[in-house]
């Protein structure tokens, strides 16, 4: 199915699956409400027309302005050769998403990784312990306000670091007003 057909199909099956949809660069994304997250996943895997037999990977996106974390499940169908991004937004503090690990086995480790790197809980996950990070690691490294460890020790002169005090919430961009950061005030 084409991205447009995929979105239309989901809306047809259950209009409540699709909160919002978007097609960019030839990829369809659907934002699924929390209470339909698992049902939608189950449908996508089991429906003969969708046949999403492969859980490609899961990613997180930090949106500090909205104080939300977006969880993105990248689904792919080897049989049908189409791709869909299933998205859900949760609050940054104590946000949690129902687990997909009962539907796709591959979601198990992906959810552990998203949990430790972004600080999102996965309800009903059978073994939600850290996957990549050491047991005692504190903080969620892929959130925008988490500083690179080397930069924390020594500032890289002339560079604006993601998460540094006074830096723009989106990295790589110049802050809106200069002189917000007392440490860098002299440079402007």
């Amino acid at each position, binding site marked *: 199915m084409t991205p447009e057909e995929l979105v239309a199909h989901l809306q047809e099956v259950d209009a409540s699956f699709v909160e919002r949809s978007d097609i960019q660069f030839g990829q369809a994304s659907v934002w699924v409400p929390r209470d339909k997250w698992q049902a939608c996943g189950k449908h996508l895997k089991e429906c003969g027309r969708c046949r999403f*037999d*492969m*859980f490609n990977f899961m990613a997180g996106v930090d949106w500090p302005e909205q104080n939300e974390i977006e969880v993105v499940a990248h689904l792919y169908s080897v049989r049908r050769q189409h791709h869909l991004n299933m998205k859900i937004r949760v609050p940054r503090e104590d946000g949690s998403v129902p687990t997909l690990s009962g539907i*796709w086995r591959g979601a198990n480790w992906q959810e552990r990784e998203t949990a430790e790197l972004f600080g999102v809980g996965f309800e009903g996950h059978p073994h939600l312990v850290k*996957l*990549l990070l050491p*047991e005692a690691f504190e903080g969620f490294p*892929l959130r925008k306000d988490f500083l*690179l460890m080397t930069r924390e020790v020594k500032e890289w002169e002339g560079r604006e670091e993601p998460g540094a005090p006074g830096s723009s919430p989106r*990295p790589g961009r110049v802050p809106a007003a200069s002189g917000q950061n007392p440490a860098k005030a002299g440079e402007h």
Partner: protein
Amino acid sequence: MSMTEERRAMFPGGPGEGMELVIAGEGELATEDMVLNIGPQHPSTHGVLRVVITLDGERITAAEPVIGYMHRGFEKLAEARDYRQIIALVNRHDWLSAYGNELGVALIVEKMMALEVPPRATWIRMLLTEWNRILNHLMFLGSYGLELGAMTPMFYAFREREEIQALMESATGGRLHFTSCRVGGLKEDLPKGFLKHSERLVKLIRHRLLDYEGLLLGNEIFKKRTVGVGVLPGSFVKD
């Protein structure tokens, strides 16, 4: 809580803990569980992995892989760099197929910026990626054989790799981390005589592949250790 679960709870198996060897009780060997750590090894060795296995005698009853020793937070590094700089980062992801990785970044940025790449650059990129892929497969053939006890294919693979690396070096200046892809095209055009040399190498390697076939597939030990071992059904792999 069973005996096994109790042991595993004692050693949750996070990276950074030392090697532990626990021999359970004083009972009979075949009925008591044992928790063993395999690894971890130094990050510069390949396939860094620690496996916490639970043994009942000589039979493995549970295995918990502990990964993460090779994760260096590229996503975070990429946040602090621009697209051109990321190209030099990503070809370290898999340093045996560096070109494929840098091409991926270039393609995705071009897609986002709706940039059109000149046809010549597209074809050169494809040619270099394919050469890199062959380099990668040669390494696989060589080192996989080595790990299963066949030493010779490694030497053969490195003989071929050396020639291809010289070819790649003539075009990109690099032997491993080529960093020759650019958003919108390439760092530079191919040097004179590249295609002719390429053609010669293709013929040579195609011919020499017969040696590999004989060395690996004709090797009794290699076959004993691979045929029918660790077979996973397709649906399981995709799931």
